[in-house]
């Protein structure tokens, strides 16, 4: 059985305690909700997309350290990035989480700090926590594209 230090890297706890980009955005920013039916975690992701760039992002809702820090790190990683790059990163992140059905990603999307979340894979039940924000973001991008 892997140890706690595999899961709770320092940077994760840091994002958990001081989450980045907390808050909400007013319309026309897009608001998307996500649930983890297993544990009751809820998240709202707000994104503003201008000229195919995610110009702003805010996160609210609540959840465990893993879902909260993953959301916080995600927001820091994608703010100001082109939508295409964000999509590539979502793909790469889900691949790192060894989600079924996600093929070999384009590794040009750099993971940076997000690599700290790699340890989650050893705790399969927590993968859903780590991925919650990312799935919610992906849904938001789909709405934006419509």
């Amino acid at each position, binding site marked *: *059985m892997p140890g*706690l230090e595999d899961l709770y890297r320092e940077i994760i*706890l840091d994002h958990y305690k001081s989450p980045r980009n907390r808050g909400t955005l007013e319309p026309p920013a897009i608001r998307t909700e996500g649930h983890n039916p297993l544990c009751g975690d809820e998240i709202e992701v707000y994104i503003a997309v201008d000229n195919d760039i995610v110009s702003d992002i805010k996160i609210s809702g*609540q959840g465990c350290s*893993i879902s909260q820090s993953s959301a916080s790190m995600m927001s820091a990683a994608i703010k100001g990035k082109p939508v295409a790059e964000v999509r590539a990163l979502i793909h790469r992140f889900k691949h790192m989480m060894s989600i079924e059905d996600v093929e070999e990603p384009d590794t040009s999307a750099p993971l940076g700090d997000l690599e700290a979340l790699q340890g989650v894979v050893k705790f399969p039940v927590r993968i859903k926590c780590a991925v919650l924000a990312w799935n919610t973001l992906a849904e938001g991008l789909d709405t934006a594209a419509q």
Partner: protein
Amino acid sequence: MTIDIDHIRADFPILADTINGKPLVYLDSANSSHKPQSVIDAMSTFMAHQYSPTNRSAYFLAAQATEMYEGARTKVAKFINARHAHEVVFTKNATESLNLVARAWGAANLSTGDAIVLTHMEHHANIVPWQMLAAEKGFTIRWVPLTADGLLDLSHIDQLLDGAKAFSFTSMSNVLGTINPVKELVSLAHRHGAIAIVDGCQSVPHMPTDVQDWDADFLAFSSHKMLGPTGIGMLWGKESLLDAMPPFLGGGNMIADVTLNGFTCAELPAKFEAGTQPIVEAVGLSAAVDYLNAIGMHNVRQHEMEISRYALDTLTQRFGEDIVIHGSKNVEVRGATFSFAFRDVHPHDISQVLDQHNVCVRAGHHCAKPLMRLLGAHATARASFYLYNTTDEVDALCDALTETGEFFTL
């Protein structure tokens, strides 16, 4: 100790196992219980040497298996003091049992303008089937509120039950541990002309059950929470009600005759048992009931009251204001199931740190989201105890909680 705990623990092979060299501290029996060797052996032996389909073929093996299957029914009927064995219907789990009542009794008896009463502490299994039916039939659902202590607030019960057709409630909350006054609730329901449906999932495994003394109309419960296998649940119902109900699932075994134009139903209990039944599982369940009977349900309850008292005292002493235990502190009206909040650590993170010490608790909404909203929590951690748990395991929980606190204040 009212029961010989070492002896009991020796009957459960998994309790002797270690993970990473440390023993298992299993505190999730409200979710599902472990199985004694006698249950495992009964199923293995049956599959290896006695297996046969039941209630169909006429050869020796089939007759023997049918007797074992029906024997399980008789045993379960006695365990809850049912008047007749054929009042016990085998289902796949308590959830199916409750869906059966909603669909078969409910669809025939509820329509627009009607009302039924549930409580604010129900499990989703006793909420969603009614909501599905209500969306179709147009009746309303009324909710019994809770007191600050996590008991049913009966101050407006007469108003709530006025004109209601059914009152469906849990005998014990799987979140708060609250034991409801079933007999009193049944009599309130009947006084208002409503039938009384009891979700017995959390109480039947932990204390004596007497459906005749309760005068209840239906009782749903599950094998896997009372030392038996998964894949089998029970619905007990009063003969007259079961007889008057339309069938639930259609297929083999539940019919008297089938033509191209329609079918007629078999007698009880076959009427509600369509298709090949959980035969192996009934044999395992039968051994589980034997096991519980040998210990005595009064003794199980006694043991869990002692654990509860110790857990309440110890957790409060060691963690003071750092811990909030939901529900009543009076062990007379609660079972050994404790939902709690610990500092501001998220339940998922609590359970993760506890897991490092093989302390197994459930973190989440416990399939009771309406209750969680009432508690103002998205999730809680829950430690639940059974006949095989010890006060030492309460200490192990406390030690692991101490470490959780340290870890998350680094």
